[in-house]
């Protein structure tokens, strides 16, 4: 079985091969394989402590793996120090040099070490980079004189100015308020398209991950749980952890009772649930298998309590949010599910305590790996 995260070895700009990084008592990154294609916006997503930042620092060169290698293209950079790597980082809290002006911050990477560029070229590239992040005219300010959002832009300009092949972003939007964050998400995505380089973006915010990425890499306890396009991650989470970490989900466990035309009927304490019997990363289902089934709340519709194929439940309460209503219902086995209903005018005469049925398209019931 190919390791999760591995892709084409030919077109990848970054290849992380079987990398392990241990800290006393814990493996922060544990045997990870990951390939990042040229021009991709890749997001490392996971709860805090899952190893996503360590993985980013391994790529940047701030950490050296205990095992495994890191390749840039076909070059093994495992032991290359960060200042010799052709990647730049946008840091959490920006890490702008407080003693340098905005222009000098942006120029820092242009005047480095062995690379001596003519002053005119440095000035031009500083100007272009600031233009790119829409901070033209701010060159003479000091970082402390800028707002959080502006500092964020300077950090980005500084990192892109030397023209890296890959930009690493370590939770760069974490310090911004929600409105600003959403605006920056769009800008960052545009910037990435404009530059045509790979972005590796670390976040614990699933909305951010889904909204911006070409590829989302979900991590847990130092390992990659799943790698895929945002829709794939959302619609077909491989594990219960992903299903619950990315978005809201309802999970029920049961045994396969029958298989008919590729559709398995799973007997659960709350009733019979239909699920696709085809392979979903794992082996095809057969009779008697014990499976976990996940259904997203927005895929569920209400029906008559005794409608055919409906799962019976009782309404507990409702949370009215304007565009949608979040319903909490209790199934026969005692578990609670969440149902999102669009407020599209369809009368939904539900009162707490009402007995209703839940129905969904069978392809929306996702089998999870156990």
């Amino acid at each position, binding site marked *: 079985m190919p390791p999760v995260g591995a892709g084409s070895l030919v077109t990848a700009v970054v290849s992380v091969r079987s990398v392990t990084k241990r800290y006393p008592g814990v493996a922060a990154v544990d045997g990870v394989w990951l390939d990042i294609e040229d021009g991709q916006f890749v997001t490392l997503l996971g709860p805090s402590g899952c190893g996503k930042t360590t993985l980013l620092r391994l790529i940047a060169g701030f950490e050296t793996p205990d095992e495994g290698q890191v390749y840039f293209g076909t070059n093994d950079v495992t032991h290359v120090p*960060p200042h010799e790597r052709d990647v730049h980082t946008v840091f959490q*809290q920006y890490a702008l040099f407080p003693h340098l002006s905005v222009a000098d911050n942006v120029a820092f990477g242009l005047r480095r070490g062995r690379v001596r560029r003519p002053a005119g070229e440095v000035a031009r590239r500083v100007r272009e980079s600031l233009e790119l992040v829409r901070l033209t005219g701010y060159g003479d300010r000091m970082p402390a004189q800028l707002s959080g959002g502006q500092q964020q832009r300077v950090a980005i300009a500084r990192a892109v100015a030397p023209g890296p092949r890959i930009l690493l972003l370590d939770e760069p939007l974490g310090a911004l308020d929600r409105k600003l964050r959403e605006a920056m998400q769009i800008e960052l995505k545009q910037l990435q398209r404009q530059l045509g380089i790979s972005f590796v973006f670390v976040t614990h915010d699933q909305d951010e991950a889904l909204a911006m990425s070409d590829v989302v890499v979900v991590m847990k306890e130092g390992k990659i749980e799943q790698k895929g396009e945002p829709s794939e991650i959302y619609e077909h989470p491989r594990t219960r952890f992903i299903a619950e970490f990315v978005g809201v989900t309802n999970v029920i466990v049961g045994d396969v009772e029958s298989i008919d035309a590729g559709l398995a009927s799973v007997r659960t304490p709350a009733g019979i649930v239909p699920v696709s019997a085809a392979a979903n990363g794992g082996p095809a289902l057969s009779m008697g298998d014990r499976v976990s089934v996940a259904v997203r709340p927005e895929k569920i519709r209400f029906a008559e309590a005794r409608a055919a194929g409906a799962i019976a439940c009782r309404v507990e309460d409702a949370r009215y949010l304007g565009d949608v209503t979040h319903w909490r219902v209790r199934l026969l086995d005692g578990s609670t599910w969440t149902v999102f209903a669009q407020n599209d005018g369809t009368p939904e005469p539900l009162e707490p305590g009402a007995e209703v049925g839940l129905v969904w398209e069978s392809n929306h019931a996702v089998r999870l790996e156990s």
Partner: protein
Amino acid sequence: MSATSRPAPQAPRPFGAWLGIAAVYAYLYVPILVLVVFSFNASRQMAVWSGFSLDWYAKAWQDEAVIQSLRTSLFVAFISTALSVLVGTPAAIALGRHRFRGRGFVDGIFYLPVVIPEIVLGFASVVFFGLAGWKLGFWSVVVTHVAFSISYVVFTVRARLAMLDPRLEEAAADLGAPPLEAFARVTLPLLVPGLVSAALLVFTISLDDYVVTSFVAGSGGTTLPLQIYSMVRTGVTPEINAISTILLLATFVLVLLSQRYESGAAGRGTSAVAAAVVIALGVFSIGGPVRDAGKRELSVYIWSQYLPEELVAEFEARYDVRVNVELYDSNEAMLAKLQTGVTSYDIVVPSDYMIEVLRANDLLGEIDTRRLTNLDNLNPRFLGLPFDPENRYSIPYGWGTSGIGYRKDLCPKPIRSWADLWDPALRDRLGMLNDARENFAAALKREGKSLNSTDEADIARAAELVEELKPLVRTFESDTFAENLLAGEVWVTQGYSGQIARVALENPDIEYVIPKEGCTMFVDSMCIPKSAPNADLAHLFIDFVLEGRSAARITEVMGFATPNRASLEFLPPEYRDNPAIFPPDRALDDCEFMTDLGSAMEIYDRFWTRIKS
């Protein structure tokens, strides 16, 4: 509502706060203010304001010894600051930025120099230099200052480092800067405020250190605090206030500038002014050595107020040499320095009994009397004294007695004998020398015993008497007893004839008496230590002092009598005919020289410690 009706915890009560702060700062600043104000006082008396004057500033500027010590102080401070910052900063970085085994231990090591009492470090260092054979002088002061300054640099720089985001260095590396460049372009500039405050702190500590420096200083290492300490032996003069005021001003400017720098408000101008002040002080500090580079040097280790400035200048001019004058305040301190074996003094001026000790320790070189053309000027009575019968090691410099000074206007009755001191009417108005031997001498003489008694019963009886006297004593003082008399702080004081004779010239109500039971008499003589690097020049110097005119000037400055017959014609009558300075022979009949008591001294020490505890 209850939450808002309660007084908010930070409700400012600025009035009370300001009042408290004002009280504390008044306490801190009133003495400083007094000092500054009296530096402009026309009178020498600190307690009396007698008009505005800048004379003390002029006087300080012309006082070669003071200026030289200020130069030394600044030079020591500059070099030890630079070295400490240079050596301490990498350590701060190692401790602040790296995790390694034994870090806690190393951390602990840096705390040691801060917490070990100064007296211990000073004592240990001088013993160490002695064993290691390192010359005491300028560099011994510098390396010791650095040894206790490094820690302050480590703490200060590390605190600054802790405030820096470690990601800044990563960001620099990430942008392609190699480690050294990242350090130079990011870490170092950001550390500058920390380095500046560390430097200021260390500079201050070095500039003000007295205890450790007094142990490890040698020829060329007399710093301003040592000079001041010697000068205050005869009472603080407004000259010292003037110097303190100037130093205060200079450093105040530096501190303010560094503050501006730290707060980021500094422009080019601020930096330029700061640099100018530092450079000016630096140039001043090396001005002396540069001017005198290449000249032969004579180091004189002598009591304070013994050698007039103009004689030094005259000698320097006559032989085109440079004279270092270092001062001590007791024979024992001088002996201790010589005993380290790592001094480079050419002339020392010990008292009688100390010459025996120095000889016993083989610390003195022989004097070639054939080279002394003015030897005949000496009164033969002062040649061939018991401590050096053939004058092979010593040539008398001055002599005096330690008797009693008292205020005729304040004392209920005239003082004529030691026994007069045991008078309850003198309670809290009596001063005694802070010296075991002199206190016991008073008691022993009162009992009609020799002040060199080694008889245990005699000593025990004397101890009883001193114990009896102690409740009457206002202060034990070997330095400013004469000033105390002048100020009326004490009415009667045991003291050396010279200092009391000097204040008696200022206030005719002061009288010096040699008690009728007799007292200590001493002769201070010039000697050439065996380790003297420049014995040749030392002979020239001794001969120079033996000139009548020189001896007269010396007597005027120190207030002690001169053994020099030829000087009498040059002395003003108020000195020549002053019985406090030149007492009649019969007054000296019962006076004795002190002799070294060997192991009996331990008995005195024990009783003395008991009396003082």
